[in-house]
């Protein structure tokens, strides 16, 4: 009885419709409630004294003077919290041989990076806590800092963390066999060494947490700016030994996350213990300087890669060596090896070739840890692959688009597998490229480029095809022993007034999760969208689920909502049928009214059904069990991941005198399966592109040789600004996944996945008349001038 999804010609057909976000109104009025804003009675504030050294032993801590300062309620060190909180280790079982030093909220003996929190000072105000922090004296004994990745990998190198035997966190190898032979026999080989800078999320709201331990009930409530409240409920429960049901984690409005706010941070774990020690709420908000030295960073890869081709430009093989430096320990609970693992598995993903070899080394060093941030691994795999494809095109004498047309996996070749073992259900590389070419007026741009070159104006055009991982199954983390859910749950209720409440485990950080869930529920139930209220982000009121990461909100959360709504609709129609003495199968619900499915004649309103069920159950037959709440869980089945794909184009103008690049325009064609809300998808893509362009041109965490971050402020670390960013044209191909009814896949990372690759190709294209090339991002003016031989 279900109408085709995405058909927009029925009442309440919201799937596929651009509608605005109900919850945005509050943010626009300045009525958002971020953790940063929250105030609880008797709330205390914590400031942390941080290590000035990249690597050092803690010799002694003298906090007597600080304890006597005004407003100070507690000064806590590593041993104080270690008595309450068990240590954690960021490894996963399916990453064989992986190792990492155990972590505690505050270190006891050794500090591992400059900026690591060492002492917690809790006071009535943050200013008092900061004043007192200055009165704490810590004697450190400096240890050799491991900073450079080659230094870290050298035999007999100093260790970044004394608790692990050497600096190799994890190594992995993929080999389809016979690679050396393929390269030896190939007509063409192209190769390059790539450098990807460290960068970081810079959410506009820094990390924030407010823990409230109530000793009378033994109950912990944590207001936590995170994407994954259930994960933290589990972690706080297990590491602090509090029964899970006595731990409540609430994630209210969150000022950006992008993966950064789903990791365990020592300060956050400390705040829970500090609240237990004080018996009062304790709040911590990272200031921007602290954010730079304690939020996870991402990327930091050096990739040596080569590609073998036959005569006519057909790709035969890739051979890749990725070395990534992750800081002094692996992040918990998702580890810091996932990015490298995805880099070597996503290499060459859009292309048809069978021979592949890759080596991955994940290396410790004394910097803040890296871990999952938007588009984990994708930008690296994409930039390496796409740059090699462009180099190959030049070598073979093909236009970059023609080169891709020759090598992309054909749209009719699915299902198929990548040489790295990924299973692709159905992708649309060819259609996407054709669409991009038309959208860009590619041939026109090439003609214009040639004409402008005559006049000394150097424009470049870059193309990058990509594959994105979304909707991960337990193959991602669960299999490795991490208690990270791949399923989601929803409780859907018709209220006594006939309104609908949906409590669901996917979470909102502004992407529009609540909106699309509301659209799916309203659509599938047959009620106006305004009557659906979606509630997220509170472990006490929503079922346990994976929440929002790896682009799972629409695909898994949306499907959960769809199935729950269909279940509830069945229940409503059964009650209505009984009231109307009709057959449920002959009824339908439209606009909140139960109607005859065939004629559309209105029979009884949903609110009347609810009134009767809640208040006059005496008028219903005894054997009718009126269930106006349903609970439903959905876990992805079928393919381990729902892959999405797309292609991006970047158009730049390079000033060869100054090395400055103006990004003229950027295009994206992406295929995220069924689109629930085009408006929101486009904005996800645009936001993602800008983060990718930031990485391509501006963003880099720079360290000196002592492991000190030298640009850790918003004045020094360059975040893309409005005036530097281009307009971004977004187009779509829709290839729904058949693994779910809804058919939606993710879209939040697509923009970031390929934007830097397209930019890298565009800049290289602009430099090609000079015989110059670059394989490092960010492409700063200085690096470009160096590539051009000017400096």
């Amino acid at each position, binding site marked *: 009885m279900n109408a085709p999804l995405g058909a927009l010609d029925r009442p309440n057909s919201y799937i596929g419709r651009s509608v605005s976000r109900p919850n945005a109104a509050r943010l*626009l009025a*300045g009525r958002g409630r971020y953790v940063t804003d929250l105030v609880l009675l008797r709330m205390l504030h914590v400031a942390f004294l941080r290590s000035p050294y990249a690597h050092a032993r803690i010799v002694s801590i003298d906090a007597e003077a600080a304890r006597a300062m005004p407003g100070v309620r507690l000064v806590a060190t590593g041993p104080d919290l270690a008595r309450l909180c068990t240590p954690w280790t960021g490894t996963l079982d399916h990453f064989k041989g992986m190792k990492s030093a155990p972590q505690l909220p505050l270190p006891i003996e050794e500090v591992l990076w400059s900026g690591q929190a060492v002492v917690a000072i809790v006071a009535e105000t943050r200013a008092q806590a900061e004043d007192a922090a200055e009165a704490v004296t810590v004697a450190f004994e400096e240890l050799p800092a491991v900073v450079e990745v080659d230094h870290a990998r050298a035999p007999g190198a100093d260790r970044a963390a004394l608790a692990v035997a050497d600096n190799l966190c994890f190594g992995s190898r993929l080999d389809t066999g016979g690679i050396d032979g393929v390269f030896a026999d190939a007509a063409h080989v192209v190769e390059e060494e790539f450098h990807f800078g460290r960068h970081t999320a810079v959410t*506009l709201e820094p990390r924030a947490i407010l823990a409230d331990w109530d000793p009378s009930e033994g109950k912990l409530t944590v207001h936590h700016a995170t994407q994954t409240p259930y994960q933290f409920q589990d972690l706080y429960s297990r590491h602090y030994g509090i029964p899970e049901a006595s731990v409540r984690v609430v994630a209210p409005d969150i*000022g950006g996350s992008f993966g950064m706010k789903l990791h365990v941070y020592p300060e956050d774990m400390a705040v829970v213990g500090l609240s237990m020690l004080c018996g009062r709420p304790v709040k911590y908000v990272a200031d921007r300087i602290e954010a730079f030295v304690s939020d996870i960073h991402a990327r930091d890869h050096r990739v040596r890669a080569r590609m073998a081709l036959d005569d006519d430009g057909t790709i035969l093989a890739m051979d890749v060596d990725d070395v990534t430096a992750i800081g002094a320990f692996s992040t918990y609970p998702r580890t810091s090896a996932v990015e490298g693992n995805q880099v070597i598995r996503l290499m060459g993903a859009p292309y048809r070739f069978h021979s592949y070899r890759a080596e991955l080394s994940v290396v410790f060093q004394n910097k803040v840890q890296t871990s999952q941030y938007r588009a984990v691994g994708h930008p690296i795999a994409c930039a390496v692959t796409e740059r090699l494809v462009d180099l190959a095109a030049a070598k073979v004498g093909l236009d970059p688009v023609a080169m891709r047309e020759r090598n992309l996996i054909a749209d009719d070749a699915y299902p198929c597998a990548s040489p790295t073992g990924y299973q692709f259900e159905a992708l649309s590389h060819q259609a996407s490229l054709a669409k991009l070419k038309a959208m860009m007026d590619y041939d026109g741009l090439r003609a214009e480029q040639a004409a402008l070159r005559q006049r000394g104006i150097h424009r470049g055009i870059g193309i990058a095809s990509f594959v994105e991982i979304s909707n991960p199954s337990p193959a991602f983390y669960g299999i490795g022993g991490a208690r990270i859910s791949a399923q989601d749950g929803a409780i859907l209720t018709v209220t006594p007034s006939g309104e609908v409440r949906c409590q669901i485990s996917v979470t909102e950080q502004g992407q*529009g999760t609540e909106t699309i869930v509301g659209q799916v529920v309203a659509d599938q139930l047959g009620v106006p969208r305004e009557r659906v209220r979606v509630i997220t982000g509170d472990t006490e009121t929503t079922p346990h689920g994976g929440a929002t990461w790896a682009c799972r909100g629409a695909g898994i959360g949306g499907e959960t909502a769809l199935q729950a709504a269909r279940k509830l609709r069945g229940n409503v129609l059964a009650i209505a049928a009984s009231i109307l003495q009709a057959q449920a199968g002959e009824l339908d619900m439209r606009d909140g009214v139960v109607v005859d499915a065939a004629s559309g004649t209105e029979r009884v309103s949903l609110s009347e059904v609810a009134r009767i069920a809640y208040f006059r159950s005496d008028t219903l037959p005894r054997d009718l069990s009126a269930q106006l709440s349903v609970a439903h869980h959905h876990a992805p089945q079928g393919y381990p991941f729902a892959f999405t794909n797309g292609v991006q184009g970047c158009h730049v103008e390079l000033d060869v005198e100054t090395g400055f690049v103006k990004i003229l325009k950027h295009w994206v064609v992406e295929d995220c399966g069924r689109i629930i809300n085009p408006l929101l998808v486009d*904005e996800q893509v645009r*936001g993602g*592109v800008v983060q990718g362009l930031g990485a391509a041109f501006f963003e880099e965490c720079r360290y000196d040789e002592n492991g000190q971050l030298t640009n850790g402020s918003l004045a020094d670390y360059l975040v893309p600004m409005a*005036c530097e*960013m281009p307009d971004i044209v977004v187009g779509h191909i829709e290839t729904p996944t058949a693994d779910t009814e809804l058919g939606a896949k993710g879209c939040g990372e697509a923009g970031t996945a390929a934007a830097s690759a397209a930019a890298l190709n565009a800049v290289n294209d602009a430099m090609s008349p000079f015989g110059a090339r670059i394989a490092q991002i960010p492409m700063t003016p200085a690096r470009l001038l160096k590539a051009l031989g000017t400096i």
Partner: protein
Amino acid sequence: MSAHLPITLSVNGEELTRRVEPRETLADFLRRDLGLTGTHAGCEMGACGACLVMLDGLPVHACLIFAVQAAGATIQTVEGLTESAAIADLQSVFHTRNALQCGFCTPGMLVAAHGLLSRCAMPSREEIRDALSGNYCRCTGYEAIVDAIETVARRRAGEAASSMAEEPA
């Protein structure tokens, strides 16, 4: 940590007298002392624009001035601009155009846009992008924000034109 000082100022149309620490920024004063948490702090060094408020009719960074310096001033925060409906059209177009995601930059963006449109009625897209250069947004990629401001400028110009046309000759 020196003694608190009394200040009197107007915030969102209300005259207030409060005692503040000399080192307290206007942003902290608004957020903490007055509970006006619509003004956000993203960097506390004048770089991100999340803390913009109108001070005597001009956008200023509330993180860069001390509360004591605002004595005698007239402040409008996003809450006040909302109540007075001064930015209602901006808010409504931001909403329909989805010119916000997490919303953390949004109050500052609205204040910046309000300031821009009061000094330049019909800015070009480049001028809008330039005017937003002190406002970081990490979520949207800016284009929707530029679109929204451009739309409001056009609408205001259209309304101004049609109200002029309606004037009797």
